[in-house]
């Protein structure tokens, strides 16, 4: 069989196209590799016991650690999870249970739109909502900002995972005469719980690295946290402060903190991925 005229040219175009797409993937992975390489090679030297146990030293003195920033991040992120997760999960349950209504569409749309709102404007929102009335920066204000940021992600994740639960399970429950809400809570929600937990974990991991909304809500603090109504340090803000400072030793610590933060985020992501995969495989 003879090939039609121009066939080799078409094949060449196709090969070029395939090559370009594969090259795009390679290009996309270069920055990731570089970021991981730099954080590991520059950060590893700074991660030692004092990093986790000591307070920052005053300017000019070598040594010290970021213990207070770690404590602060745990406090802020923990409180924001307490705020954001229940709200998001319930809103997600609503979307999955009453999907058809126009109201549900509005909520779903708002959540999607909300996830694209810049985190810095969420910071201004939390500032006027919490900092202004209280009269000072505080851990609470930071948590409110982060909770707002995680809300749309948690909502949509919950909705999507609830949808994966087979309808037959719910029908079986309803067929036994169980009230609708019991069927939702004890059967559907419980079945989807591991998946939801995974998704929520990712949402939390993402806000743990947020800096911009904390700058003028949680602010910063050189000492241990003094209560949730006081300014508090956090790892991302500390990385920022140290990175833009002119001190060599602070740069070293910023890299160390970045390594800790990135390791944490990557571990959570990989764990979530593996959990989801093993669940899918088990089905």
């Amino acid at each position: 069989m003879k090939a039609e005229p121009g066939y080799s040219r078409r094949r060449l175009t196709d090969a070029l196209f395939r090559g370009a797409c594969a090259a795009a993937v390679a290009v996309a992975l270069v920055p990731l590799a570089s970021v991981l390489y730099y954080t590991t090679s520059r950060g590893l030297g700074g991660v030692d016991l004092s990093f986790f146990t000591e307070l920052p030293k005053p300017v000019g003195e070598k040594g010290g650690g970021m213990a207070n920033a770690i404590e602060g991040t745990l406090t802020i992120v923990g409180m924001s999870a307490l705020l954001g997760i229940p709200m998001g999960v319930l809103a997600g349950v609503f979307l999955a249970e009453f999907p058809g209504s126009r109201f549900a569409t509005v909520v779903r749309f708002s959540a999607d739109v909300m996830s694209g709102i810049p985190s810095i404007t969420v910071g201004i929102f939390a500032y006027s909502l919490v900092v202004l009335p209280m009269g000072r920066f505080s851990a609470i204000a930071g948590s409110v900002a982060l909770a707002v940021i995680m809300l749309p992600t948690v909502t949509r994740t919950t909705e999507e995972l609830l949808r994966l639960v087979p309808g037959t399970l719910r029908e079986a429950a309803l067929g036994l005469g169980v009230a609708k809400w019991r069927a939702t809570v004890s059967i559907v929600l419980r079945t989807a719980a591991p998946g939801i937990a995974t998704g929520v974990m990712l949402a939390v991991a993402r806000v743990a690295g947020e800096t911009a909304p904390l700058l003028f809500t949680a602010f910063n603090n050189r000492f241990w946290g003094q209560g949730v109504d006081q300014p508090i340090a956090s790892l991302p803000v500390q990385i920022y402060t140290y990175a833009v400072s002119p001190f060599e030793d602070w740069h070293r610590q910023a890299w160390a903190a970045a390594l800790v933060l990135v390791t944490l985020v990557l571990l959570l992501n990989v764990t979530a991925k593996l959990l989801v995969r093993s669940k899918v495989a088990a089905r």
Partner: protein
Amino acid sequence: MAESTQTFLVRAQPRILRRLGRESNTGDLIFRVLSGGFAVLVVVVVLAMGFQMAIGAKLSLAKFGLGFVVSSDWDPVRDTFGALPFMYGTVVSSLLALALAVPVSFGVAIYLTELCPVKLRAALAFVVELLAAVPSVVYGLWGIFALSPLLREHVEPALASTLGFLPFFRGPHQGYGMLAGGIILAIMILPTIASVSREVLRAVPDTFREGGLALGATRWEMLRDVVLPYARSGLLGAVILGLGRALGETMAVTMVIGNRAEISASLFAPSYTMASVIANEFTEATGDVYLAALAEIGLLLFAVTLLLNIVARLLVWRVAKPAGAR
């Protein structure tokens, strides 16, 4: 004669049903109101955000009016504020980021949906999404100590010597500036555009592809003539989502763009973005007008990103509807 269980049940059925019904109605009602209340909250937060920021910006809105967006006079000492240089910095750095990120993101999305061996697909997609998981401030740190020196010592001299006749590639090589900001932004919006595009491409029915291939098209022809026309509006949505993300991205840009409120044609020159000026000056803003001016920048940013996101979501939903809206 003793009543059989069966007839007992039949007689009692209305009572049981009524009891069950009553109980479930109250429970269901509470449940519905509770979950619905939090769903309302999602909408309320979005509205409240705009409202709060409008209130915060009131002073500045009243004092400067439209002049705010056309003046480049940012002087806290004399209490006059104009946001033009920041708007310029934000728009140009975001467009630069789009120019760099869109081709790569589309390439990645196409590779992952159309060309990639199935075994590799999930793993590659995961790795690309990890780009979005790295915190902004870490990109900023990397930008200061890795990207910026690279630009200063290699990329900028090379650009200047080859394309230096263009006004975009002139001036001293500093490593910090519009170019660095644009590149960092491109890296950060790449996973967004890639993953939304992938979702859109996956929503194109396989029968379309099979039809194209069966007609003798190569992969490229099938993609160009069948898949892309079908997915076009969704892909546009993905790009707009990326743009929205670039406009509002704060930390990494703040750390590499140089933070100087100047309008310069050169990409080597330092610049300043709307998000960066808020990040840098909000806590130091003394005086109500100053604070209001920063809030107005926030309001502008909020309004623009909100609008872009609404448009983008509508476009994406046209191709790939979310599960609930089908």
